[in-house]
């Protein structure tokens, strides 16, 4: 029966995919969410509705308080990077060199979109609270369409953030939590036709700054009234993010409040732990295709598997740990739509994680 349901779900999604209309191949770098963790990146917004199975800060602060083992706290450090590593390697001399015009020439002459991302994070997780500091997160995306009359998209960002979380059970069924997040970013977000923009390129190509303080609450409700429910552990969640103050708003990266509502279950299985979740996202600027996202995770001993799906993107992740060290790999396929030179973009990310 379960297999049949899953089969129908994926058939329905495949049908919708075939009927999809175009979308621009813009990057999702400015989206909310902590992308320094492999699990969060694969699951996307679904991470705010599934119980975390690793010792790390959660997406939804209400989901803290899950595991008594961490009552003394766990320290960790993450390095997360990926995407066009080969392009970076190919241009390593130009990146190190002084002639940035040559670097621009090389990157913009690529016939396919170029993107890469890297971030570092230091964190501390206890049973009911968590702290994390992201000293550096860098992202780059560029895409050129029609090399003879180029429409250029360049998105680049440098970001630092500090966040604190507190949360856990407030009654037998209810959980609640609050997250405080400080963010400081510098970015370039330009989309232009090269020739139309050239006469005023100096004025147009500006590095912009943005600082923000977000107060992000979350709640969750566990359905455990019957034996059947206790077996499947259904959980309903609601969380808000990007709610707070921004020193400057920019049309190109609107910082709008986001509300995530989700539901998850943990089907009883003989071996390991399995969790399946679905999230719905309300915000002013999310595309229709990204409103709903599925996510699932499975853990068996020292191995963790993740998957995430929405009509625009699906991702798979694998993580394995040996003592304090863990390493993970993530594969992501993003639909670029009819307007891109190719239908989708494949990317690979890697995570190195130390937790003790």
């Amino acid at each position, binding site marked *: 029966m379960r297999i049949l349901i899953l089969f129908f779900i994926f058939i*329905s999604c495949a049908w*919708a*995919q075939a009927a999809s209309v*175009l979308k621009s191949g813009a990057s999702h770098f400015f989206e909310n969410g902590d992308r320094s963790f492999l699990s969060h990146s694969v699951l996307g917004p679904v991470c705010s509705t599934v119980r975390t199975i690793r010792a790390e800060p959660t997406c939804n602060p209400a989901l803290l308080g899950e595991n008594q083992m961490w009552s003394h706290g766990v320290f960790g450090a993450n390095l997360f990077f990926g995407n066009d590593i080969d392009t970076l390697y190919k241009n390593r001399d130009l990146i190190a060199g002084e002639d940035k015009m040559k670097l621009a020439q090389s990157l913009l002459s690529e016939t396919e979109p170029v993107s890469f991302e890297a971030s570092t994070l230091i964190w501390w997780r206890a049973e009911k609270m968590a702290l994390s500091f992201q000293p550096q997160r860098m992202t780059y995306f560029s895409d050129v369409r029609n090399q*003879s009359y180029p429409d250029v998209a360049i998105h680049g960002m440098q970001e630092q953030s500090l966040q604190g979380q507190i949360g856990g059970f407030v009654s037998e069924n209810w959980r609640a939590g609050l997250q405080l997040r400080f963010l400081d970013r510098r970015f370039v977000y330009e989309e232009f036709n090269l020739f*139309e923009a050239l006469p005023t390129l100096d004025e147009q190509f500006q590095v912009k700054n943005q600082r923000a303080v977000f107060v992000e609450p979350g709640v969750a409700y566990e359905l455990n009234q019957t034996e059947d429910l206790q077996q499947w552990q259904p959980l309903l969640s609601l969380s808000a993010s990007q709610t707070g103050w921004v020193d400057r708003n920019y049309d190109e990266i609107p910082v709008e409040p986001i509300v995530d509502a989700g539901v998850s279950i943990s089907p009883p299985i003989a071996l390991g732990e399995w969790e399946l979740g679905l999230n719905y996202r309300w915000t002013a600027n999310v595309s229709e295709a990204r409103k*709903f996202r599925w996510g699932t995770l499975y853990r068996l001993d020292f191995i963790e598997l993740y998957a995430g799906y929405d009509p625009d993107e699906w991702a798979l992740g694998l993580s394995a740990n040996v003592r304090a060290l863990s390493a993970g790999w993530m594969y992501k396929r993003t639909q670029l739509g009819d*307007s*891109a030179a190719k239908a989708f973009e494949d990317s690979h990310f890697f995570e190195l994680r130390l937790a003790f």
Partner: protein
Amino acid sequence: MKNVVLFLFCLALLSCVRHEKPNLEDRYQVIQSKIDQKEYDQAESELVSILEKDPQNERARMILASVSVHRAGITLKDYFLLESLSHLEDDPSIEVLKLNELEKLKLPTDTGSQKALEFLKQISHVAGRAVEISNKFEQVTLVSEDGANQLYQALNEMEKIKTPQSGNALYRGVIKLFYFKYLWENGKFLKFGNRQFCLEKINSLSVRLEGFHRFTLGMVRDVSQGFPKSQSEFETQIQNLDRGFLDARKFLVQVKDATRNFQETLQDTLLKDQLDGWKCEF
């Protein structure tokens, strides 16, 4: 529990539905990608249908012109040479016509002789500028005859826009530069070497010089629009070029028998005995 599963299933169906509709900019992005994928015919028919409804649509017309540019094989890497072109300066070291020997001769001071010498100097000057522009494009692949035909088509399309935005005027200027390189390297403006210039008939030379004048000035004017900060520098260049062309053309207009070639005309204008020992070799 079945209800929960059923609820999840209904949400799943909802999650897979997409509602976005393409706008005109989305259509352009599709077309731009098709051009990169060399699906030229499809891109052209899409653009023609947009232009049929809106003939004044500058963006659509520029993209249509760019289909021909793409066919000619000119891409982004070629445009990065623009920066060096923004610093064009007179380089006196480029001397297309070797006039030293002629200047050493004691030419009579009558106006005809001096005008002939002045004409040669002006031709040497504008040809020197052409060589300089062509040299700046040394790294750029010289387009083939087919490529040049494509550029010609692209320029014809762009000329339909009476007053293009400054960026699009720059694009037209840049495409003219590529076309200019082809025309110059293939002797379509002026022919030098092996006495070709000397043996060219005056009426033919006059027509070529007029075309050279018009094309070069139009090209530099278009390119200058892309560099608002260098406007005065460009204006000086344009004025010098224009003056050089006009002076050269003034001499040709005064020639009585335009069916004679340049060498014969030069001999008629200058005193023959003064030209003893000097042979027109341009």
